[in-house]
């Protein structure tokens, strides 16, 4: 096995910095200062959540399998920052971040990971199934590609109900090889449905490296969208602003009734596929290279440079995030296990 070491972009936030020549972040994005700072805060919250989840898993206090998201936070936050609370997302096995970014309550998320009755699924689903329909979160999913059909379905409903809602369908590079993606891309294209197919290329499935697993043509990832006549954008998945701008293009197109868009983000999971991954398949050096692009501190620095925050603010928000997550853990731990008698409740309703 020869292992390719994937080189990250040379400079953190290179695209955003290029776009910022002669303008400000507020102007470039059209986002208020608060929303911009919110990006940092939410990324920090997600990072904390994942760190704690991994720690709890290692301590044997979370069972099953837990897939964490450290390194990819810019994607979940950049994308969901384009959406209203009514808009929909579908997520994946690596879904904590998506749902937290879309506004799920970290307490109930953590409770779900710990299998408690107060969790989003009452402890029935665990890490891979968190959903909150009141916030348009149609669910993480244990099946790679399992949410794609749901995504075009919610887009179809929005289209028929004319409620203006957009669906963002998150999936990984590995999921690019699932047949259902082909089917729903075609469906969404012929029906011009309001959805955005958002691929997070983190260069690996579990151990399957994108180079060996994914056949691409001269147009690379975009060719997979062009095959259906769909517009495609490629984004730096370590750059929350670049993701935001890319996904916003798709969301605007969807809201304007112009149909679906593909957004390909290139990002990296700093850690293993799941907590406990023996990581036999990638070079140790590779994550080190990518950590320099860490979307959180780099974006923090940009906020400081832009005069939107101080270094102290960043430290405070990091601190706040860890306090909130610590509270979430306490909440989860003090929550009851679901009782055996509830096993069959709500199977049908």
């Amino acid at each position, binding site marked *: 096995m020869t292992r390719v070491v994937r080189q990250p972009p040379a400079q953190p936030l290179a695209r955003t910095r290029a776009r910022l020549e002669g303008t400000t972040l507020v102007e470039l994005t059209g986002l208020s200062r608060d929303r911009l700072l919110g990006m940092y805060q939410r990324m920090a919250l997600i990072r904390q959540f994942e760190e704690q989840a991994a720690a709890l898993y290692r301590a044997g206090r979370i069972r099953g399998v837990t897939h964490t998201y450290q390194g990819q936070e810019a994607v979940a936050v950049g994308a969901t920052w384009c959406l209203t609370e009514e808009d929909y997302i579908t997520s994946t096995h690596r879904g904590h971040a998506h749902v937290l970014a879309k506004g799920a309550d970290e307490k109930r998320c953590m409770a779900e990971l710990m299998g408690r009755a107060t969790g*989003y699924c009452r402890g029935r689903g665990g890490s891979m199934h968190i959903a909150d329909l009141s916030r348009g979160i149609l669910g993480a999913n244990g099946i790679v590609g399992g949410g794609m059909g749901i995504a*075009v379905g919610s887009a179809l409903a929005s289209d028929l109900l004319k409620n203006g809602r957009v669906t963002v369908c998150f999936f990984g590079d590995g999921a690019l090889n699932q047949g259902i993606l082909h089917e729903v891309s075609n469906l969404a294209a012929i029906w011009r449905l309001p959805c955005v197919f958002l691929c997070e290329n983190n260069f690996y499935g579990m151990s399957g490296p994108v180079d060996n697993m994914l056949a691409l043509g001269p147009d690379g990832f975009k060719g997979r969208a062009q095959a259906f006549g769909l517009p495609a954008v490629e984004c730096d998945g370590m750059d929350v602003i670049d993701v935001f701008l890319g996904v916003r293009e798709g969301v605007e197109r969807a809201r304007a009734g112009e149909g679906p868009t593909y957004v390909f983000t290139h990002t990296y999971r700093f850690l293993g596929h799941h907590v406990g991954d023996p990581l036999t398949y990638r070079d140790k050096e590779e994550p080190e290279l990518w950590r320099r692009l860490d979307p959180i501190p780099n974006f923090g620095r940009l906020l400081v440079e832009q005069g939107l925050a101080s270094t102290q603010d960043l430290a405070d928000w990091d601190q706040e995030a860890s306090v909130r997550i610590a509270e979430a853990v306490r909440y989860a731990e003090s929550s009851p296990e679901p009782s055996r008698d509830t096993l069959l409740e709500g199977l049908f309703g």
Partner: protein
Amino acid sequence: MRGEQIEERSLTYAQALNEALREEMQRDARVILLGEDIGVWGGGGVFGVTKGLLEEFGAERVRDTPISEAGFTGAGLGAALAGLRPVVEFMYVDFSMLAMDQICNQAAKIRWMLGGDVSVPLVIRAQQGAGRGNGPQHSQSLEAWYAHTPGLKVVMPSTPYDAKGLLKTAIRDDNPVVFLEHKLLYGTRGPVPKEDYTIPFGQAAIVRQGRHVTCVALSYQVHKALEAADVLAEEGIELEIIDPRTLVPYDRETVARSIMKTGRLLVTHQAPERAGFAAEVVMCALEDAFDYFDAPPLRVCGKNVPIPYSLTLEAAAIPQTEDLVRAAKRLVEGVPLGGRRS
């Protein structure tokens, strides 16, 4: 039994289904149809079930889909979660295998898995069964798979009356329902009231009363059982025919009560015998009425073989009226089976 609801008008099974769809679509704008060749083909579907609906409700609500079973089933599920009440059609149930993940990993589980509060008003209609020479990949009966999957309701109407009433119930249900229609039934006729009616799930129909043998028959086999009952009646053997109509929920009480009367049980379906639903029917009956069995229960089901194309072989692979007659006689005559102590 169901006599009081019967009036003069007679429809085919396909027409009854068509009426149910039409009325529910008129009643509720959220009901939409998704499937292959349900719109422009022949004026509405291969068996005419969706006839005229494209014209009446338009291409937004009656969607001819590409050949993408997994994709359009998923779309139905997503639409159900987001406010519509989709009815997804498989032209042949055999094709539902392409959407198995969407049906059984996703649709079946999502309500319960998310805590029980999510509505999943999705109906999956499929045509199934053997008898028309459609060969091994177009003749299967898959009710056992779906009944084995927690979270799905499973419906198998055998008459036009039931077809209409049960399809309406299915569409109004907030859970995923797998609705299985037998290809040989579409052309069969029967009384169907004009007025709006629904049939509750979980209530078996006693299709014919009798004292000697309880015969639980699924879908098309109800008609074979009726034929067998006529033959048996001439020899003084009375068959009591029960059509469960829904496998999930399943009306075990009606079957148990019947066995307490007859002491004998015969179960028939077209699906292969091995691990088919007949074994479940028997098992439930044993749990409920073990001591009433005067003879070992019998199955008259499909052979454990793919459905053949040739007329001769197809007939040999699926249960026929004569097989039911023979089995009923065996039950009554108490011929020793297997290890019966003599």
